[in-house]
């Protein structure tokens, strides 16, 4: 057979090549920012609130704007929350920005008549964080034309990986500020194990979903993206952090030096970025004819 346009499996390019790289980075920063905030809420680590809030809004937000063809019209994205996931996502980020501002303000300025520690505010922010962590993959998930993204398991992957990266960042910040690491290490331990499980179920489940989904997974595991996936996602993103985590688990917290923590943090960042890139890059359309 000889083929032309869309007569064979065609990869999506607009959201990962050229200017599309910005969207990949924007999703990443929004999600890890929200992940940092989420884990910091549980650890009552207020510096983490501030860093998470800034990463989500400043890094995530500005890079999102850079991706748009007409960034000055971005306010229009708020107009269709009833049907567009992108619109709903912007509303969530808007609420995260406003409510987070009032939660963080007492951290920065003392003497204000309220504290940011109310359980109501923390609960609302926790829910908003979960929605932001999953926003990128939720936006992709509604695209029925790309079966690799249209898998129900992509949302748990997104949620767990966001929390995993967030917990690593928060733990590193706790170490730098000389605070107790026991709880944060528990978060890291269980989020890594959960991440491995949901990633496996996602790949396995999607492989069996349809012919196009199977072709996408093949590209991911034995095709164009294979080297990137095995080195970035598997070795750097999972195996190295797993070894470090198991050693610390077995030998106690004295093994958890700042250097080791930093190495694991960098590996997790690279692994998460590569995982998101690989999933965005390997999505393909079913041929038209």
């Amino acid at each position: 057979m000889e083929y032309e346009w869309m007569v064979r499996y065609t990869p999506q390019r607009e959201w990962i090549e050229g200017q599309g790289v910005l969207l990949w980075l924007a999703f990443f920063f929004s999600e890890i920012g929200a992940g940092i905030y989420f884990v910091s809420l549980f650890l009552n680590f207020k510096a983490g609130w501030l860093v998470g809030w800034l990463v989500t809004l400043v890094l995530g937000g500005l890079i999102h704007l850079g991706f748009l063809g007409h960034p000055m019209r971005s306010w229009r994205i708020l107009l269709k929350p009833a049907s567009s996931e992108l619109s709903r996502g912007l509303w969530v980020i808007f609420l995260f920005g406003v409510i987070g501002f009032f939660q963080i303000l007492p951290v920065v300025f003392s003497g204000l008549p309220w504290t940011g520690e109310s359980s109501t505010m923390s609960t609302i922010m926790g829910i908003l964080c979960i929605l932001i962590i999953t926003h990128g993959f939720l936006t992709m998930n509604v695209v029925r034309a790309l079966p690799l993204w249209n898998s129900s398991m992509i949302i748990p992957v997104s949620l767990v990986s966001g929390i995993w990266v967030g917990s690593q960042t928060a733990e590193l910040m706790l170490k730098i500020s000389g605070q107790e690491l026991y709880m944060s290490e528990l978060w890291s331990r269980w989020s890594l194990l959960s991440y491995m499980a949901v990633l496996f179920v996602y790949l396995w489940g999607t492989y069996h979903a349809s012919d196009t989904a199977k072709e996408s997974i093949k590209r991911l595991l034995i095709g164009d993206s294979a080297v990137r996936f095995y080195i970035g996602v598997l070795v750097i993103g999972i195996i190295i952090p797993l070894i470090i985590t198991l050693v610390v688990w077995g030998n106690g917290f004295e093994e958890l030096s700042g250097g080791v923590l930093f190495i694991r943090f960098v590996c997790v960042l690279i692994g998460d970025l590569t995982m998101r890139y690989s999933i965005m890059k390997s999505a393909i359309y079913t041929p038209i004819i």
Partner: protein
Amino acid sequence: MARFGMVIDLRKCIGCWSCTVSCKEEHFLPRGMFWNRVLISESGKYPAVKKEMYPVLCNHCKEAACVDVCPTGATNKREDGIVVVDADKCTGCRYCLIACPYQQRTPYKDDKVEWFPGQGFTQFEILGRTLYPLQKGTMTKCNFCAERIDEGQKRGLKPGVDNDATPACVISCPVNARIFGDLDDPSSKVSGLIKVRKGFQLHPELGTDPSVYYIN
């Protein structure tokens, strides 16, 4: 209200690309931008080789994925079923392009592209920028020549019957492989062809209910 649609007879199509060319001419499309394409595949081995031509364009789906995902309402469906893009509202997020299973949308990224690189814009291109201005950074797609339909209907003409109210690709087809009309009118030619010759849509399993049908 009518729901406009198209029937493409695959037995008649000879792969001459006149639909592609007339579309580019009608909308002054820049180099590299296509709202109409002809997909070609060859199957079999010599001497039993079969060549298949599939003209494709925006399907103007009844349940259009692009309309649902557009966060600004820039992509919207008119009452007559034609899916159009309002460039003034488009933010250039390309969500519609990602969501389209037929990949029939084209972002307008570079307004400096010349038909003849390094030669400057031709008079035709300059005219196009006046009569049919595209906005850089927005999405473009086939609109079933909505401007021809609207103008024609104002003059009392019937789309699909009168040339001046019918898409350019339909009237330029030398073998009448394209037929345009009202899908909701059971007496229209398109409805008759779909019924009699068992018209089919591309990827009906996706639930988009395209308004472009094929007969073979």
